[in-house]
């Protein structure tokens, strides 16, 4: 079926299967920042923003996103670049596969949280897993980034 989606402020006419998830639709549409890390909505590597809400795109039907604003890392180049500077300054991206999802989670966290205590940050980002870094470097980077912001 054909649907119209708004991806990173651009209207895109896309051919999808009725039971298709956004992760697959986006990747087919060339948005490669969105990664598949699992089959059980557990890893957060496909995190994107839909109408300013952080969602796992692997479990969000594409058809549901019609009329909504879909945002991926490609749509926030400046903000993503700045977050990337802080993460890479700590060396905390390592393999980088989970990073775009983490960046989107940080993007949403700034809207959603009032109090950026370490406890709150950890809790908010708990669904964004990383096997390389041990998280400490990510947390150092996030705290420094939030200070600047």
């Amino acid at each position, binding site marked *: 079926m054909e649907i119209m989606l708004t991806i990173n402020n651009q209207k895109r006419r896309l051919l999808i299967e009725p039971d298709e998830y956004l992760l697959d639709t986006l990747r087919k549409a060339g948005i490669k920042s969105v*990664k598949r890390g699992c*089959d*059980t909505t557990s890893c957060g590597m496909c995190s994107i923003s839909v109408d300013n809400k952080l969602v796992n795109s692997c479990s969000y039907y594409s058809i549901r996103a019609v009329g909504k604003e879909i945002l991926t890392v490609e749509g926030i180049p400046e903000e993503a670049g700045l977050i990337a500077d802080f993460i890479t300054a700590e060396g905390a*991206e390592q393999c980088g*596969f989970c990073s775009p999802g983490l960046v989107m989670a940080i993007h949403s966290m700034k809207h959603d949280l009032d109090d950026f205590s370490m406890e709150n940050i950890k809790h908010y980002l708990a669904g964004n897993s990383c096997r390389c*870094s041990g998280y400490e*470097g990510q947390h150092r980077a996030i705290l420094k980034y939030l200070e600047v912001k």
Partner: protein
Amino acid sequence: MGVKKSIPKIDGKGLVTGKPAYTDDLSPQNALIVKVQRSPYAYAEIMDIDVEEASAIEGVKCILTYKNVPEGLFTRAAQGYPEPSPYDKKILDKYVRYIGDEVAAVAGIDEKTVDKALDAIKVTYRQLKPIIDFEKAKDSDILVHDHDRSYSLFDIGHAPDRNLASSYEMEIGSVAETLRQCDVVHEGTYYTEANSHCMAEPHSSSAYLDLQGRLTIMSSTQAPFHIRRILANILMMPISNIRVIKPRIGGGYGGKQAVHGEFFVALTTLRTKLPSKMIYSRKEVFQSTYTRHATRTEMKIGAMKDGTIKAIDMNVLSNTGAYGEHALTVLMVIGAKSLPLYNKVEAVAFRGDVVYTNITPAGAYRGYGAVQGNFALESSIDELADKLDIDPVEIRIKNMIKVKETSKIFEVMGEGREGTPMIIESCGLDKCMAVCLEKLHWKDKYPRQVIDENIVRGVGLAIAMQGSGIPHIDMASCILKLNDDGSFNMMIGATDLGTGSDTILAQMAAETLRVPVEKIIVYSSDTDLTPFDSGAYASSTTFISGHSVRIAAENMIGEIKRAAMRHFNTDVVDFDGTLIRWEKGNISLPELAQILYYSENQEQLVSSGSYVSNTSAPPYMVGGAEVEIDKRTGKVKLLNFVAAVDCGTTINPNLAKIQVEGALLQGIGMTLYEEAKYTSNGHLINNSFLKYKVPTRMEVGKIHVEFVESYDPTGPYGAKSVGEVGINTPPAAITNAIKNALGIRIRKLPVKSETVWAMLNEKRQD
């Protein structure tokens, strides 16, 4: 110029901002989707496969079964040739040996078509009784490799008629005799579980034919050159007709040091002439790649009353599951990278069997046996100290290896064959110990702090080592090319799987050439375009590939000077990274390059370097844990982990630190949460992130990593490896801390709350 600087990874920003970089991102858009039908039984013979209906489905392009693929036996392990792993695997076989083993592969135009075809394949199985319990596998009536002609390329103790993938033994001195002379002997048996790597990116590969019809494979592999060789051998194609490209990899930790989907995409593309790709599902990653080897280690360790350790006996049973990938080498590392820590013993023995069972195979995983060995050894040291009533720190300081010493183990035990004698040229264990004790506030906290009637805290520690590459086996190489603006292309076989090796190798080239790192343009891991490298494993890249870069850069300086001497018709020039000076003046490198490429005596300056080591400088560390236990529930919380590390020079301190932090958390996961658990009929229970528990950021306590000042003269710029050593100490350090807190000794990983609680109650009743 380059080294000892925490510059960001050169590819970091691109990765974080989501640029297409990984295999699935870069695979051809129209690639056929390849998926695999997998065995529902732990052990069965395929009596018949009917693919007629499946083949007729529109959009299905290729179906592979054991009937139509090359029959040759091989090992999936991506190791140097001849591999020390048994040849016990076929691309597809008439026998399936674990739940998840490959039965058939289907390629089609999209996933739905392929799924439909997979459902339509009719397989008739004759079920066989599986052997699941690895402690009953040796000499069992059930033989996992009864039906093939599996063999090894040289003697690795492979005995399929006894269910042995491999076995090994050695003894230095007489352990039995020396133990008899000891005042105190500790005996204990320690178990570690199978763990899954849980790298972020599932195993991925794609294939296409290039303009000349050559097979091009893109793969998330840690060892592209070995993959090319293994494919060529089994597909009976010349190596020259295969190109393997490794793009960015989403983590590996050893899990991608093997052939995984490459055969299926290769055969699909060779037969259909169409591009194809195979991306593992997470369930497949858990079930059908491989895990860490689960082990049982029986220890005997004897000492005199003054704490002098005189003899160690280590007897290992390792579970390799259905196939023997990395079986012998992981087994040998269990001893070879733990026992030399106590090098002053009079006698030491190591024995081990690696058994086949009908579960997911085991293979390479960070630590590669050293972590299993460390858990047994470093737990035993604390238990021995306890028996002797000696401080666990004191007994270690008294007995541990020191600089300029050696261990007979280095000479006797290598990886898959005898080792290499080696004098330790740097060993910061003493400094690491001091740092760890200080940062952990050991004096104030040892052995325990009682917070209230329910909450107790304890501290414990362990020492560890690893290696830096495999001497006389691992080879790495580098080619440098001067560009007309004075920059350099650096082509390296080394495989960056997220570690940052492209970056630190650029730093080393920049250091030698005395140019800014930005002048080094790195291209790595492409069998057509980069020179050979064994691959990213055995903690070899910094040490082995690093030396090859250093040599290539030194040779490039020679080339630059030679070209300048010819141009200025002089015998003496000097190059300081910026200017080339001769007696009558100077010229900048870009100016010389311009002349060389456009003006006169035109020539391309190219240099190369290749390196094989005759040593493997061990990095060392001391890891200390502070745990808090709630006696009502048995719940263990890790409050602090302090890691003091000697990896020689840290080429990039930030990247080194992250390597250790990441390894520690994997070690902590292995200690407290992670186990691949099978039912009695061989079904893997935890085959998803919902059921297999890796630590999230919520579980991270405080991790403190500190590097001690160290320089190893055998390493490039004094560097040793850092990728693996960090994983080794958490199991023993944490269980030693639990012992110090509660008085109970846990000898089986992972440490579960219910185990702690039950042991506490048992103790209360005593």
